[in-house]
């Protein structure tokens, strides 16, 4: 690692001073540096060894209520000056916007907990290769129908960043992230199916065992062999846990302040409205130790805190930064930069229980494409998964679509499973939705 937190802090201070010198009435700046290693092993042989080393700085300046931004990967002091100058020249061309500016100084995080996000992994390329090899090896050995591979990839990264603004806020901390993934291909006759699994964590000791990840990838690929289409029908659908985060992301997109003030959302003015059945609770906790999305302050320096977005099925809060909050006459929710460690509570059933409850329908394990209209909530995506009858999986399914409208899908949420052990920062079990249109033959 080249730059320490202190050195990054100095750069931020330099940026803010330069902005002030050029006449900016307010400014904020972020500087980051990271280093990492990524190795991929395919069919037992090393495929790539990549050494990553990134750095960058970004600055936003305000001249009254006009704003300009600039960023660069060049941290030299000459580049720093040029970047601020460029942001200032842009600010002179943008419009006067009463909401443009830094947040209320009262909201700045004052002191914050150590969220335990930094666990460097001193890993040599050879050790990394061994881990990736073990992961892919377990996948290749899992079943004789696993005939090919896109490989297993191990990556480890450590980064540091500092954010500061002209309200006097200056904060930063180091983080680490380690990931292991595996993608393999199964073959039966002429048909090939690929599938994957992965894990990603702040600390290497929390990563799932390489063999487990490999076997899971292989198990998923093999399970898809022999997939067929379905006849077009209207049936209940289970989004298995790994496909459910997308539904939560669509919800968050719809309740973002930006979508609300622009009136470009299917949940317009839905605050206080019952948008889910009354047992549903959806919340974020930015302060989870070692959380993948944990952060003690948001991208504007505002203190973060746990928050229910949906409680008793009722929308409690929009997702706001200071700009969108101002536009809506509200107060920022500390969500500049997004939501952190989002979760939906389970209604208590295991996936098996959900299958029984569904009785006959489609279990979706993969979604394809971008077919979600954020303005209307119309939803239509490519899907693969399994056909279920009498609560039991019958055969794999592919080349179908699942369609509906997100407003209806949220209302028709019957249950959320206890199977929440999915990788990533969103915690959810499988979703059982009462009815959707499945298009096939």
């Amino acid at each position, binding site marked *: 690692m080249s730059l320490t937190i202190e050195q990054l802090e100095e750069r931020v201070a330099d940026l803010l001073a330069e902005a002030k010198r050029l006449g900016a009435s307010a400014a904020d700046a972020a500087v980051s540096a990271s280093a990492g290693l990524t190795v991929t092993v395919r069919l037992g042989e090393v495929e790539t060894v*990549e*050494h990553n*080393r990134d750095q960058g700085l970004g600055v936003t300046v305000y001249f009254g209520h006009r704003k300009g931004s600039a960023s660069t990967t060049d941290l030299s002091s000459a580049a720093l000056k040029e970047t601020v100058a460029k942001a200032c020249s842009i600010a002179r061309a943008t419009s006067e916007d009463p909401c443009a500016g830094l947040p209320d100084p009262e909201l700045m995080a004052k002191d914050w907990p150590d969220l335990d996000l930094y666990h460097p992994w001193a890993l040599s390329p050879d050790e990394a290769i061994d881990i990736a090899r073990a992961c892919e090896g377990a996948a290749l050995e899992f079943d004789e129908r696993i005939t090919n591979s896109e490989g297993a990839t191990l990556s480890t990264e450590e980064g540091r960043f500092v954010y500061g603004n002209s309200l006097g806020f200056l904060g930063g901390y180091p983080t680490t992230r380690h990931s292991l993934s595996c993608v393999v291909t199964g073959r039966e006759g002429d048909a090939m199916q690929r599938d994957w699994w992965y894990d990603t964590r702040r600390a290497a000791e929390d990563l799932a065992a390489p063999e487990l990840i490999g076997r899971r990838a292989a198990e998923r690929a093999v399970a898809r062999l022999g997939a067929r289409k379905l006849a077009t029908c209207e049936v209940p659908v289970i989004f298995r846990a790994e496909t459910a985060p997308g539904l939560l992301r669509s919800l968050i997109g719809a309740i973002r302040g930006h979508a609300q003030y622009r009136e470009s959302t299917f949940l317009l003015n839905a605050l206080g409205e019952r948008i889910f059945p009354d047992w549903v609770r959806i919340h974020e906790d930015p302060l989870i130790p070692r959380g993948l999305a944990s952060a003690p302050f948001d991208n504007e320096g505002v203190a973060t805190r746990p928050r229910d977005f949906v409680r008793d099925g009722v929308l409690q809060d929009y997702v706001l930064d200071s700009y969108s909050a101002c536009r809506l006459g509200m107060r920022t929710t500390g969500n500049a930069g997004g939501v952190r460690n989002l979760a939906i509570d389970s209604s208590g059933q295991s996936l098996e229980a959900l299958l029984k409850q569904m009785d006959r329908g489609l279990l979706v394990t993969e979604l394809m494409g971008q077919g979600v209209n954020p303005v209307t909530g119309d939803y239509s995506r*490519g899907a693969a998964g399994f056909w279920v009858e009498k609560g039991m999986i019958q055969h794999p399914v592919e*080349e179908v*679509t699942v369609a509906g409208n997100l407003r209806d899908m949220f209302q028709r949420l019957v249950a959320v499973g206890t199977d929440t052990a999915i990788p990533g920062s969103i915690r959810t079990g499988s979703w059982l939705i009462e009815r959707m249109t499945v*298009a096939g033959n």
Partner: protein
Amino acid sequence: MSDNLRIARQTLLEPAGLTEHHLREVMERLTGHGVDAADLFIQRHRVESWLLDDGLIKEGNFSLELGAGLRAISGEKTGFAYTEELTSENLVEAAVSARAIARAGRSGRLAVGRPGALDPLYPPDDPITSLPDEEKIELLQTIDRTARAADPRVKQVTASLAAAHEVVLVLDDQGRLAADVRPLVRCSVQVIVEQKGRREQGSAGGGGRTTLDFFLEEERALGYAREAVRQALVNLEAVETPAGPMTVVLGPGWPGILLHEAVGHGLEGDFNRKGLSAFSGRIGEQVASPLCTVVDDGALPGRRGSLTVDDEGTPTGETVLIEKGILRGYMQDRFNARLMGVAPTGNGRRESYAHLPLPRMTNTYLLGGDHDPEEILRSVKKGLYAVNFAGGQVDITSGKFVFSLSEAYLVENGRVGAPVKGATLIGNGPEVMTRVSMVGNDLALDPGVGTCGKDGQSVPVGVGQPTLKVDEITVGGTAL
């Protein structure tokens, strides 16, 4: 080319106090025993963008990325390192990291690119300075006024203008030095309309490897504004889309995203070398109807997906992928070409110096046929006329692909009827192309808005096609 080399030296080397001599010294450290191929890629990428929203010029942003990526290849192994500080010491350090891969290397022959001096496919001018800031702002404001004036139901207008200037220099282990200076501009308009409480959106845009004056010519930018409004108003009337298999007529231009997803990705060299594509090992086989000839051509002047040389210094050109339905070839970068024993096709592309090159599409399109588009529509008893699409995705191994309708109409007895809501179409790449039964004489390329993602890397691409009739494809609607 020599002009591009001069610009690249001035832009990338001189400010860092580097000379070609330094680069060759670094190359010596990168190559040597066990290294079969290597390259050094230096890039400066400047992007300026402006956003109008709510009638205000809300945001302006400028970014500068500068760095060098060093790659050493040994057999099928690749070592890679990059640096954002262009000093001899940093480059040597990166070279040492990258070449560590070669410990157990073996020798092999390099694939050599297409020879010949080249005329650049676009001007080297910096589009960021091609218009004064005031005129950029005025352009966005005119778009806003035009969209709002087009119809009282327009509630929101968002317009963006982006200009990028990229200078690249590639030195390979054979001592060949190539440079490219690439302008890229894009203008996008999105509108929200409202009628009796129902809100819909429409969007349009365009661009290419040129300067910002492009948007002032022929009132192009205003055309995007009017087109976005027209599309949004059409969507206000949209009815539920039928679900299930049906005949689909695809309009010309941007619907060529069908080819990009259905066949394009499956014909990239890396997937085929590894036997992971539904098209692997099928060269010479019939994979599409005899009406279909599909090419990838990175050498179209000024197009968004075009490159004078690719990111490995190989000149681009036309690569025939499918000829009259027969699979003819794959798109190759140097690495996969060498391992497959074929010539690189100028398809080696990378998002930046911090990413490894991959075989990628440039401008992919299907050649025109004999039919009048009207005649194609008249031949449809019951089906869908799909004019515009939002995006797509493919699983190259199973061949399954999707793409999302953003403007489509029901067709009954040869007549175009009511518009339908957006829905996903899903099919199997190698199958769907065999069901192309009519090809129009109206080949068009997209307006210059496409971005393709692969392995986490985004690159600008183009697509195109004439009006096409596909006899059966599954439509992911909601109406049974």
